[in-house]
């Protein structure tokens, strides 16, 4: 649309004005730009303009073979890179019909859930920071750091992991890793109570989030939203539960849902509860991790899925992340479409934001937990 990049506001109405939030703005979590049409503090229309951080992941996938794209995968969403990295591995395994050894599956689940907790922690910190509370931000980063240390000890990286391989994982975990993970779970339970005392029970926080940015079930159906935003509206949908992949079917966990109709506070409670559920999964996984190989015995030297279309979806920290691969039987995919949840979630902003206050923009944007490189892929 040509008018979305129009910089000069409509001068015919002197009572209203345009405000560019972004691309450089402290609370757009990256280079997202939202053009707001305001009347005083009230928003008349909101127009998210994306593309400032475009890195052409999809196009890059069409120019290199499957293994060469693997390091890209965790850079799609740098906050839950492990989940995206493992998702890509699982998509290729799905295309190749590779069986992954049980030990590797459990390791993947532990790492993925740890990464999910770290992503939600970062969300909590930055969200409260957006609302003006500075202290929870540092608490959350402190705890996130502990998870990064644990993942660092087996993967060698702290943010953009490349831990998965087609058919398994690169490194085996040792007892130290398992013990540290178990210790972290024990420690984090007490910390979660502190977060509830400091953030969830705070009157100002509740005033700022309750009945703000309601994303209703109708809107969710129209836009195909997923993840915590969807569950906050009361729909118990989770790819891990509905179409279990990679061994999730053997674990017992709940899908938390919101009970207030999908406002910002619902999204908060859902994410807080998801951290508890992730810990439940980790603890069960630590108890049942078997011995055995961490790589499938027969992984082909050259990755050449048979010609056809393959789709594989996982539940990332932000929602339904799908990889659609069209193969012509060669080394290089014809098309590698990434279905990323943040892109879908941010596309509801023109509907959700009008009518709210300027300060709510920050709250709503923060509560849907966007990661800009995941929008611009």
């Amino acid at each position: 649309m040509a008018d979305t990049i129009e910089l000069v506001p409509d001068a015919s109405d002197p009572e209203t004005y345009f405000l560019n939030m972004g691309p450089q703005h402290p609370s757009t979590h990256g280079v997202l730009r939202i053009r707001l049409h305001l009347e005083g503090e009230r928003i008349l229309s909101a127009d998210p303009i994306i593309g400032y951080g475009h890195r052409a992941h999809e196009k890059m996938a069409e120019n290199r073979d499957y293994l060469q794209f693997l390091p890209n995968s965790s850079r799609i969403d740098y906050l839950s890179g492990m989940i995206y990295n493992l998702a890509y591995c699982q998509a290729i395994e799905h295309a190749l019909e590779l069986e992954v050894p049980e030990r590797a599956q459990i390791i993947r689940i532990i790492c993925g859930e740890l990464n999910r907790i770290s992503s939600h922690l970062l969300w909590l910190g930055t969200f409260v920071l957006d609302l003006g509370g500075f202290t929870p931000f540092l608490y959350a980063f402190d705890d996130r750091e502990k998870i990064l240390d644990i993942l660092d000890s087996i993967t060698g990286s702290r943010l953009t992991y490349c831990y998965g391989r087609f058919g398994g994982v690169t490194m085996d975990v040792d007892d130290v890793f398992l013990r540290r993970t178990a210790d972290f779970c024990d420690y984090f339970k007490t910390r979660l109570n502190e977060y509830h005392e400091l953030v969830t029970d705070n009157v100002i926080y509740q005033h700022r989030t309750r009945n703000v940015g309601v994303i209703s079930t109708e809107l969710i159906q129209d836009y195909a939203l997923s993840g915590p935003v969807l569950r906050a509206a009361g729909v118990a949908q989770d790819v891990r539960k509905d179409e279990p992949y990679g061994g999730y079917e053997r674990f017992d966990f709940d899908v938390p849902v919101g009970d207030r109709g999908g406002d910002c506070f619902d999204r908060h409670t859902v994410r807080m509860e998801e951290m508890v559920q992730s810990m439940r999964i980790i603890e069960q996984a630590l108890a049942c991790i078997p011995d055995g190989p961490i790589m499938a015995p027969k992984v082909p030297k050259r990755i050449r899925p048979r010609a056809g279309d393959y789709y594989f979806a996982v539940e990332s920290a932000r929602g339904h992340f799908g990889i659609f691969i069209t193969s012509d039987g060669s080394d290089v995919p014809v098309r590698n479409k990434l279905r990323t949840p943040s892109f879908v979630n941010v596309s509801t902003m023109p509907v959700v934001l009008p009518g709210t206050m300027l300060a709510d923009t920050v709250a709503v944007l923060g509560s849907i937990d966007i990661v800009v490189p995941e929008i611009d892929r």
Partner: protein
Amino acid sequence: MMDFPQIFGGHWPAVLAATVAIMGFITVNALALIWLERKVSARIQRRYGPTEVGPFGLLQTLMDVVKLVGKELITPDHVHKTLYLIAPVLVFAPLMALLSLIPIDEGWLFHDYDIALVLLLAFSSLNIIGIFAAGWGSNNKYALLGAVRAVAQNISYEIPLLLAVIPIVIMTRSLSLYEIASAQASYPFILVQPLAAIIYFIAGTAETNRAPFDIPEAESELVAGFHTEYSGMRFGVFFLAEFTHMVIICSVATILFLGGWNGPVLPGWLWFFLKVYSLILVMMWFRWTFPRLRFDQLMSLAWMILVPLALVNLLATTVLIKLL
């Protein structure tokens, strides 16, 4: 034309000395408070805070001031020059006048005005003109929004502030800060006016534009609010003004409700500063614990809760005074 010595009725050496003393206090106090704020926030957030420059990082703020002073003063092309340049002065000047009104100990004040309290409330509303000049003169949407919010907020909170002060005036039958503090020799007024004290402190925190009422400079929405376009020492002056304003609000709270310099054992001025800085610590504690209120919530807090409560309190006080 008047000779310079004739200005201030011939008391100009005293006035000059007082000005220098106040400027010195403002600077040293701001340096100390910024250091304290960093250390307090660090302790609350499980960090160390500044440790490198000087013992316990005491000289860190001084180094920052040196940096601010050394920075080039940038005046953007699109600003309204006069307003832009005069705004920091407008924000800062009333605070100096305010400080000169405050009695620190028995006999420790520049002049005992009969109407010190009125002067105080009048001068403290003046600095909003500077804030608005900064926001309007910056010719920037974020700055303007911040300035509009600041004006609305300060005007709204002036009313509960005033209503919380009036019961004290009725009780002491005086507008002199010195007499009000002296009247609390036996007990501080917070014991008889707890509601007024709380309302005053909430409204006072809002007057200083500090969290959770830092809506005019809400960094996640408005980048830096009214001082978005300011840098270098011009920004430093706004910063200085904020910390001085904190001291004034807390000093007045000490005089009106906590008994000023009255206290056992310790000398009066020590009691006074002890009380003032304890209140400032409470303000810092607020800032590092609470998220920010939304603009409309801030307004409804002032008009729907604080003003009615203050009115009820005022009415109760007058009735009780009449009956007793």
